[in-house]
């Protein structure tokens, strides 16, 4: 029995037991359901073993949506707890766990996979490639992310959740102040999914640099591809820092080293520095692809070419460089001298310049355009003023001396939600709606989509704008309750109401998927939005091989050239197409990494050793495997193309 005691929840509550039962029931329901409908073979052959960038992209997006609801439930719980003064829905410890998991889940397991999912699906299509450079590695990336996310979610019911904030500062995250295994979960879940993300970064840089269609020079890439390229460069240079920081944290907690302690030469500020050297670029990893998505959508629905293409690219390059030079602004108040703070204050505020250039470029793209107010365009239009408010409050926070007033208050919480939600969440929802027909061959219902948009936007304003005020009035972040005398009550209640509207919006979005699946017409054609870039030059949904014939392009708006200027995209005859074989190894490696992480968290060394041997066995199997892929014959391509009714492609 002693062995099993370590898995107990250190600080249980009826809510956690209820979720345990719910998780158990849902798992059983899924297993029974798949068995009943005899879908195990389908699941394994079509999804779990796939190396197809399109299916991997869809799996990323499904996982991200699931995590959105997990993180959203956390958010609702926090807003509910603080809705009225002296509330006792959650106690302090639970509140700590909930804001920690909310942050980690939303950043690492919702926003990033959503972005990477869209990138997976769209980037190879936008550059006219058959797949990514390393399809097998891409599958490994996905499964490492997925099992990292599962591992993190397990903490809730086995052993206890992390409770030191998503920034996980030491000494709060040390064994002394966070004695449960929660922070170990944090370390290993982030480590495993981080390795997956790093491989994605390598994969996409190689893909974008080497696999573009003939004629697509770097400065003729669609803007989303440019954004993805720069994002992946940031990933490759930022994630190794996190890897080391997490290793040091793991050593401190599990092997008794003195990296982030206050004894024997340890230095807790080192964690804060390393974390933010990764963490600040990380927020640009989220926002740059979002900028790319908005660029595509705004130009499509304004029916004009993107204003200032070159300045768009250069401003993103500048943002990427600056992203590594501002990390210290996250802790202006933690003991640097005024000179150091000033330097980082200047670099921080300087980022507003390239970002401002982009805002003006989008506005000028819309100027004199024939704007169509579709759902993706609504999100993009709402993004501009809302994100600008978030940016302006960011500049306020960036002033080091003023930051002493704002630091650690709800003002900060309002600021970063104000950039992340209209910036990233609106972008992925816009991209999701915009590229939906590309993925599944039918449109999402516009009417429900617009309802969801309005609920989300109004809900967002109601939820977060009051926090600016309570923050300036001194409400600290991460406090599980407050007294009535503070007067924060009414505004917090308003926030809770706003959060409720946002929750309705997300339910509507999922309902829209169901509704459109049942009722949307299936013959939307290849170009339902009258779009401009190359991904719309193939069929909806995209055939396995993407393009029957490799396209030849001459500008960043290849399809527009074809439609308006008579440029011929597809000039060659059909040829046999080489495709990579599917493989179950990436999934198995994901499972093994899960066991490895889980065993390490609980210091079950036998499990660590056995799963490590398993991981190496998979790698050895891979190196000896002779896998030359397979070919799709010309006959098969012709049949597929005729089915889509497009003989010219």
């Amino acid at each position: 029995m002693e062995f099993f005691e370590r898995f107990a929840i250190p600080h249980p509550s009826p809510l956690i037991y209820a979720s345990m039962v719910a998780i158990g029931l849902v798992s059983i329901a899924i297993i029974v359901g798949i068995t009943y409908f005899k879908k195990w073979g389908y699941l394994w052959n079509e999804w779990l073993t796939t190396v197809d960038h399109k299916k991997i992209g869809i799996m990323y997006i499904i996982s991200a949506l699931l995590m959105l609801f997990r993180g959203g439930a956390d958010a609702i719980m926090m807003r509910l707890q603080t809705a009225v003064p002296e509330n006792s829905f959650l106690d302090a410890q639970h509140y700590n766990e909930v804001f920690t998991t909310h942050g980690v889940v939303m950043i690492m397991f919702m926003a990033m996979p959503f972005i990477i999912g869209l990138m997976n699906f769209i980037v190879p299509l936008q550059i006219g490639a058959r797949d990514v450079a390393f399809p097998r590695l891409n599958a490994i990336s996905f499964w490492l992310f997925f099992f990292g996310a599962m591992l993190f979610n397990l903490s809730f019911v086995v052993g206890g959740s992390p409770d030191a904030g998503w920034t996980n500062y030491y000494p709060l995250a040390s064994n002394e102040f966070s004695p449960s295994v929660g922070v170990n979960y944090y370390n290993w879940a982030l480590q495993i999914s981080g390795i997956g993300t790093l491989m994605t970064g390598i994969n996409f840089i190689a893909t974008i640099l080497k696999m573009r269609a003939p004629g697509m020079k770097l400065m003729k890439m669609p803007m989303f591809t440019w954004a993805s390229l720069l994002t992946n460069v940031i990933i490759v240079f930022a994630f190794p820092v996190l890897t080391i920081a997490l290793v040091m944290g793991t050593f401190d907690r599990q092997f008794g080293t003195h990296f982030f302690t206050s004894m024997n030469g340890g230095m807790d500020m080192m964690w804060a520095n390393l974390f933010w050297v990764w963490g600040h670029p990380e927020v640009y990893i989220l926002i740059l692809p979002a900028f790319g998505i908005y660029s595509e959508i705004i130009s499509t629905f304004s029916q004009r070419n993107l204003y200032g293409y070159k300045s768009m690219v250069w401003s993103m390059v500048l943002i990427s460089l600056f992203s590594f030079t501002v990390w210290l602004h996250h802790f202006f108040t933690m003991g640097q001298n005024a000179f150091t703070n000033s330097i980082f204050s200047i670099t921080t505020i300087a980022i507003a310049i390239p970002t401002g250039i982009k805002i003006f470029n989008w506005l000028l793209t819309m100027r004199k355009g024939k704007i169509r107010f579709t759902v993706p365009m609504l999100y993009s239009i709402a993004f501009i003023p809302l994100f600008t408010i978030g940016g302006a409050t960011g500049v306020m926070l960036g002033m080091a001396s003023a930051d002493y007033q704002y630091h650690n208050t709800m003002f900060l919480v309002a600021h970063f939600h104000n950039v992340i939600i209209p910036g990233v969440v609106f972008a992925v929802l816009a991209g999701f709606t915009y590229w939906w027909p590309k993925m599944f061959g039918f449109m999402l219902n516009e009417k429900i989509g617009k309802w969801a948009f309005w609920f989300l936007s109004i809900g967002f304003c109601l939820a977060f704008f009051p926090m600016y005020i309570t923050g300036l009035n001194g409400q600290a972040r991460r406090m599980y309750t407050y007294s009535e005398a503070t007067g924060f009550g009414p505004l917090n209640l308003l926030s809770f109401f706003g959060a409720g509207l946002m929750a309705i919006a997300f339910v509507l979005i999922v309902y829209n998927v169901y509704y459109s699946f049942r009722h949307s017409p299936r013959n939307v054609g290849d170009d339902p939005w009258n779009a401009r870039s190359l991904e719309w030059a193939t069929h909806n949904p995209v055939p396995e091989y993407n393009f029957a014939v490799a396209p030849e392009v001459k500008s960043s708006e290849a399809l527009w050239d074809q439609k308006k200027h008579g440029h011929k995209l597809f000039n060659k005859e059909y040829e046999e197409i080489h495709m990579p074989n599917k493989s179950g190894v990436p999934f198995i490696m994901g499972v093994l990494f899960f066991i490895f992480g889980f065993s390490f968290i609980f210091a079950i060394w036998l499990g660590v050793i056995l799963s490590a041997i398993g991981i190496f066995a998979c790698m050895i199997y891979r190196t000896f495997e002779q896998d030359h892929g397979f070919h799709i014959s010309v006959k098969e391509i012709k049949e597929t193309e005729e089915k889509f009714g497009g003989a010219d492609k």
Partner: protein
Amino acid sequence: MKLDHSQPLEYSTDQNRLNILGFWIFLGAEIMLFATLFTSYFVYEDRIGSGPSGADIFEITPVLIETIILLTSSFTIGLAIHAMRINRTKAMTVFLGITLLLGAAFLATEIYEFNHYYHIGATLQTSGFTGILLTTLGTHGAHVTLGLFWGAMILIQIMKRGLTPQIANKSFIFSLYWHFLDVVWIFIFSFIYLKGMM
């Protein structure tokens, strides 16, 4: 699979060229990994608590032996790739084998060195300084260990299957990795050992 005969074997297919580019990008990530370790090392260098400092524990003899062995192995892997380019499989396997033996000798010396630190009371837990020292050296050592297994797998494949474009590609990438570890060692030698002993 289209072979481009104007290129060396390891560059001869599209996938081969992609693999090499991808590995260079991976090495970029590795540079960041070691840069983070070195930065942390410089931070913790003087934070020795009640433990020993670098000058107290570093010994020149094993460090010099390690350096000479690893530099030599970088030379022999270069010879192996040269032999591969002029299509002399036998010579290639011999040089690759020597490289791996030298790698193993390096590792043995490093284990001796770690054992020595352990016995004079400079362990992972002693202080911030010893912790980062052993983590940095250990990360490099773990890379070498992984490289030994990787190289051995490639050696077996060359002997079983001969020099195909795929195996040439793997060998070339392995040589990039091995040279990279040597570069890292030069930094370790200069900025950890020499700086610490001065």
